[in-house]
């Protein structure tokens, strides 16, 4: 052990705390993987217009509620072929026999024409980071090499307006990977700050902050949401409305963390090292940030990583009250909200795929948090 370290170059001993953390983080495989996953998620969300084959308003009556498109790798004779798909055919049948109605929708593949999967195909126009383009990562072309918007490739199936769920997930990521972060971050900062002040200084300040926390945390969220919902005039774009609400709610959501931080600070502030720092004339703020907060970093990381799914899911609940995001704007919360009825779960299980993205994101954040925690731990 000792030997190994001496073998490394001198910089290990000269490295600052953050450099050390980064080094340790790099060794944490799962954390690295998580970081990569998050990077992919953020990049695809940012360039969703490019990665998604279809836009947010490309509805299709034909593909309404259809399963993921079947991709063929072999042609009729069983030979390996360039991957292709068929267009769908839909037939509605309704009969009335003896006063009783029977109806049926038959969806079949129209095998008369093949549509090949192609990369960098033309689609609807978009503008991202100031670049105007109509090239999409992948799409369908017919045998002549032309783009036919009537045929669709929906790798995760289609929703109730025939839109590609995969495309919607990518676009939804723009909202779901950012706004919950904002809200979690605000709550986080407020929680540490106010909880810290409360626990560190104690006395009257503590008492006042504690009562505020009690009042805020005792008020159930639903009446609050209803009041906010009523207060917002029509005409405000959905996404910014959602952002405002999230921010408002995060000003209430810090109480839980603040209580914990306070409890921790009370236990820690009498520690000898804090006393020493105080005697050495270190400012209170510096003591809080440099000496006390690192003392329970793990908890803070857990809190932060759990705050994000909380926010993503909070949005689905808000949708119930007409407060969350609404189509055509999309988010993962909206996608999950659309599965709220039995028929979606029973007839279109592919609509549950967005759930996997929420889980993956949450897990990635969490494992990254694990890695950070380990990295921040000076004893390891």
């Amino acid at each position, binding site marked *: 052990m000792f030997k190994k370290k001496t073998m490394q170059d001198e910089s290990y001993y000269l490295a600052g705390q953050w450099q050390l953390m980064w080094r340790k983080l790099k060794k944490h495989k799962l954390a690295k993987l998580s970081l990569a996953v998050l990077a992919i998620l953020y990049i695809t969300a940012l360039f969703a217009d490019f990665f998604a084959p279809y836009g947010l308003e490309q509805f299709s009556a034909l593909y309404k509620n259809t399963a993921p498109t079947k991709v063929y790798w072999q042609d009729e004779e069983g030979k390996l072929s360039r991957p292709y798909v068929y267009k769908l055919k839909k037939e509605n049948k309704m009969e009335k026999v003896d*006063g009783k109605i029977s109806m049926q929708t038959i969806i079949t593949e129209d095998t008369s024409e093949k549509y090949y999967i192609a990369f960098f195909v033309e689609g609807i126009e978009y503008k991202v980071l100031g670049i105007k383009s109509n090239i999409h990562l992948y799409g369908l072309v017919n045998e002549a090499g032309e783009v036919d918007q009537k045929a669709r490739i929906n790798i995760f199936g289609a929703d109730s307006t025939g839109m590609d769920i995969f495309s919607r997930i990518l676009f939804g990521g723009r909202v779901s990977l950012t706004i919950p972060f904002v809200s979690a971050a605000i709550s986080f900062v407020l929680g540490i700050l106010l909880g810290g002040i409360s626990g560190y200084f104690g006395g009257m300040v503590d008492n006042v902050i504690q009562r505020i926390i009690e009042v805020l945390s005792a008020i159930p969220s639903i009446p609050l949401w209803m009041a906010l919902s009523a207060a917002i005039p029509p005409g405000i774009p959905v996404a910014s409305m959602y952002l405002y609400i999230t921010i408002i709610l995060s000003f209430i959501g810090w109480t839980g963390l603040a209580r914990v931080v306070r409890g921790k600070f009370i236990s820690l502030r009498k520690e000898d090292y804090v006393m020493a720092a105080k005697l050495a004339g270190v400012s209170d703020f510096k003591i809080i940030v440099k000496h006390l907060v690192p003392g329970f970093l793990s908890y803070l990381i857990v809190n932060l990583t759990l705050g994000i799914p909380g926010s993503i899911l909070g949005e689905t609940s808000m949708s119930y009250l007409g407060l969350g995001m609404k189509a055509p704007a999309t988010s993962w919360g909206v996608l999950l909200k659309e599965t709220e009825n039995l028929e979606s779960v029973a007839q279109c299980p592919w609509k549950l795929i967005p759930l996997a993205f929420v889980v993956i994101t949450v897990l990635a954040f969490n494992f990254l948090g694990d890695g950070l925690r380990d990295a921040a731990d000076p004893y390891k």
Partner: protein
Amino acid sequence: MKNLKKAVSLLMAIAMLLSLVSIASAETVTYTQAPYWEGKDLPAVADRLPLEPMVEDAEYLDIGTYGGELKRSAGGGNWDAGKPIEEGLFRFTTKGTVEPNVAKGFKVNEDATVYTIYLREGMKWSDGAPFTAEDCVWFYNAVCLNKVDSKGVRNCHKDAVTGNPAKVEKVDDYTFTVTFETPKYTFVEDLTVDLKWHFAPKHIFEKMVQAAIDGNTEVALAEAKAICGMEFSDVSKAGKELLYYFWNYQGVPTLNPFVLSTEEGKNNIKGEYYEYVRNPYYWKVDKAGQQLPYMDKITYVTVSNVDQQLMLLLDGTVDLQTVALESIPTVLESETAINIYEWSGTDWSDTRTQIHFNLNVDNANLKALFNNKDFRQGMSICVDREEFAALFSDGWQTGGQAAPQAGALGYSEEWANQWTEYDVAKAKGLFEAAGLVMGADGFYDFADGTDFVLNIVSVADNGAADTYKILDPYFRAAGIKTTFKDSDRSNIDNDLMANAVECMLYPVTAIGEISIALKPNSMVPGRATNVAWYGTMDKETATGDLLKLIELCEELGKTADTEKRTQLSLDMLKLHQENQWTIAYVASTPLYWAVNARIQNFLEDGVWSDIYRDLGIAHCQCWFIQ
């Protein structure tokens, strides 16, 4: 001509009387009762029935067997449980004619000022007390005239010319008269539409109503509590609940086939479970002389949403449910045997795609625009109905316009297809004709340069958000910028009252009935405060065709002659056709009933209409369980 009409209605009344007499004079039938009543402490069935029970003898009805229960789910609504079991003096048939029900028949004098109504001798309330003309007369004179039930004198009792309330007098125990100052040709139809019943159990309510009239609050409230066991905060609430929503309260005798249970845990319509139990004194029999109803009970489990109703239907916990078109495949796939029946509706279009503007909005620019026919036409034709309907309904429905359905008064093919073509260029031309100017951002502005944004609102959870999602791209393509907000009913209501709603994507419940002549005020401004249609418009603020519409409606109220009434109704409809104040994009669909196969005698091709009492037209007292 006028005399002929009178003669016809007279003849009709006499014919009704005669047919009843002929039934009564037929050979004596032996009446049987349900096994449910055996061993119970009740008089013999023949003594419980009136001397001449009403016979449910519609052709499609089979002779049933007793027992079982109809299992239903409820969202806590009171009409849902009330309409199917409601019994009025008269009732509508599926053909739109009126037939005697609680009443045995009626007679009208030559100038249609005096109606004599005959009741069934020996008929009893569900508590066994005799039902007589006194109950009818007292109800009108004590309850209606004093507005104890909060509704007061209905239109049917108001004189056609003077508007004065009619005089209702008792002749004998089974006869009473309704006297008007001037001829009232439509009294019986109006009665069946407006009031339905014309009676209340005097023996139960006399003290309470008297106390309410005298202003003796404490006594009235104590009486109300003694009747139903519920506390009421104020007399008007008690009066309304017990005399208007009477079927919702235990302990209130009715003439209905089923009466709310008095058992604890089954008697609260706000609870999780409640049931209506057969009325031992029900006064109808089937063709074989069996006392109706066949079923012992109607049970209700409270659910919170449509999805749950569907689930319970699928597993057989619930017998009967209206289902959306999209849900029919799921229903047919279930293991429970469920039949789907199609009833025609009276909506002018698919109500989920109706959009209407506040014609009395405060903003002058918007008001001018909304009142401009060109603008409405543009909004109508900028949507590709074929594509929209295919997406909206998975190809089951077709595009359409808000217009009377085929077979309804005022139907014309021209109107049904009015402004339904898809023509964005023409729409843009119309917007410009309406005074809008294309702005630099590709969206229309007002001529004075201010931004035009159409703020659409709706009530949350009625699916409007999904409709809007599909509509919005069309509007944008035509240069119309829109926003959408759905919120709770109470917020919308509040905004409506404050005249703060500009445009609604919401069912105009008021439009669409069997015939406009039966419910004319549903078509005009001033009534519909729950929709933005005319906003807060009334006779003072209305202008142009809207004012004409109000005037026609008023005239209709004063007109007795049937033919003239029809003409006035058609004139009103004509105004609607010309102006198309409500735009719709998808044609209406029939109503689909999913009925568990064990239910027999269900009405296969009914009509869903409020004046037919919705499910009430299917006469659930005649259903039986196989």
